[in-house]
């Protein structure tokens, strides 16, 4: 089922963030949202994730099983990378699978350290693996490659492409290169939607 956002408005105090915003996020496809800072991209994701209720308008078709890479990493600081991923995984995902995924995106050698001791880029990758391995029908990605260097970003983008599987994905970014590399449907905020 497609996710349909219809005429959604949201204000924080006297500051309107979304004004009658509408969009369709096709099922099992990647949709990328671009727009200048403060245009309401993260607020829209928060509404889709269920953290914030819109003042008016409606959202339909959001699956029950969700996963996300948040703007902040939101990791459990005193636990290592494997434990952080394990936290959200079902029993079907064993420890070796988690380790293989973390190693694939360059975290070999840092698996036993508490995530508080990892660099910003490493923590970001842990958050990405966590979102990918969680059993979900929709994946929300809020600037997922923030803080990654060029080579790492390329590798992580490839990892994401290979492992997103058949699920709806909605990504927020500022970077046109990421849009080109990942493809999918592009929505500019506020504005039109384009298929790449």
């Amino acid at each position, binding site marked *: 089922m497609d996710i349909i956002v219809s005429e959604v408005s949201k204000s924080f105090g006297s500051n309107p963030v979304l004004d009658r915003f509408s969009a369709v996020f096709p099922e099992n496809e990647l949709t990328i949202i671009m727009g200048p800072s403060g245009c309401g991209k993260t607020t829209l994701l928060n509404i889709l994730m269920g953290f914030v209720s819109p003042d008016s308008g409606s959202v339909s078709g959001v699956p029950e099983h969700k996963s996300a890479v948040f703007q902040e990493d939101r990791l459990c600081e005193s636990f290592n990378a494997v434990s952080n991923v394990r936290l959200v995984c079902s029993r079907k995902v064993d420890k070796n699978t988690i380790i293989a995924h973390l190693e694939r995106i360059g975290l070999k050698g840092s698996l036993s350290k508490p995530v508080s001791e990892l660099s910003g880029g490493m923590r970001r990758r842990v958050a990405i693996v966590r979102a990918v391995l*969680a059993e979900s029908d929709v994946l929300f990605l809020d600037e997922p490659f923030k803080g990654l260097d060029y080579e790492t970003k390329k590798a992580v983008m490839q990892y994401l492409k290979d492992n997103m599987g058949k699920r709806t994905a909605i990504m927020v970014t500022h970077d046109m290169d990421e849009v080109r590399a990942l493809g999918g449907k592009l929505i500019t905020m506020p504005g039109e939607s384009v298929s790449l």
Partner: protein
Amino acid sequence: MSDKRNMEKAAAIVFALVVWQAGAMLLNNPLLLVTPVAVVRRLFSLLTEPDFFSTVVFSFVRIVSGFFLALASGSLLAVIAGRFRPVETLLWPFMTAIKSVPVASFIILCLIWLSSKNLSVFISFLMVLPIVYTNMLQGIKSTDAKLLEMAWLFRVSWIKKLKYIHIPQLKPFIFSACSVSIGLAWKSGIAAEVIGIPDGSIGEKLYEAKVYLSSGDLFAWTVIIISLSIAFEKLFLFMLKKLFAGLEGA
């Protein structure tokens, strides 16, 4: 750096003992101030007395029980108050009263309700309860809301939430509550025994020391109380640390 600090501390203790010894020698009246050497001698003679260990066990079991009861109840009340704000408001006058009323008032009041034998359990419990409750509630309130959102989104089970989010965030508050309240449990528990004078307790020995004007006994039992309090605190905090390390490593 730590070795240097330990050396400084050891030197400070030696200095304090020297001042004490010099003061006692100047006064030259063991009734007013006994020398540290005499205290050590009395301490060793106490160790050989037949009822020494039963006296220590009597007070230890009751004070430590009071502490554990308060730890469990304070934590439970904090969880409930953290979840339901009206409970926090309802508990506020009780906790404030316990914190501000002098311990001696409670001891005398409780002597009317309870047998003197178990008075130290209740008084230790009462003095520790608001400290554990306040610290735990503060910890619960400062739990990272963004982590809870993450857990909600990923449909993390409550047991995993407890292990990965709540317990690690509460850890510093639990340590702080325990390290402050263990000493207080001992102080208030012994005070309850001194006033209630239950047979075979450390408090009774302190009371006898007062009656017979035996400064040596008073100082020796005080050293024993301090040693028991510190030993229990160190052991308990060590085990707590191990428990948390086990949880985080599991």
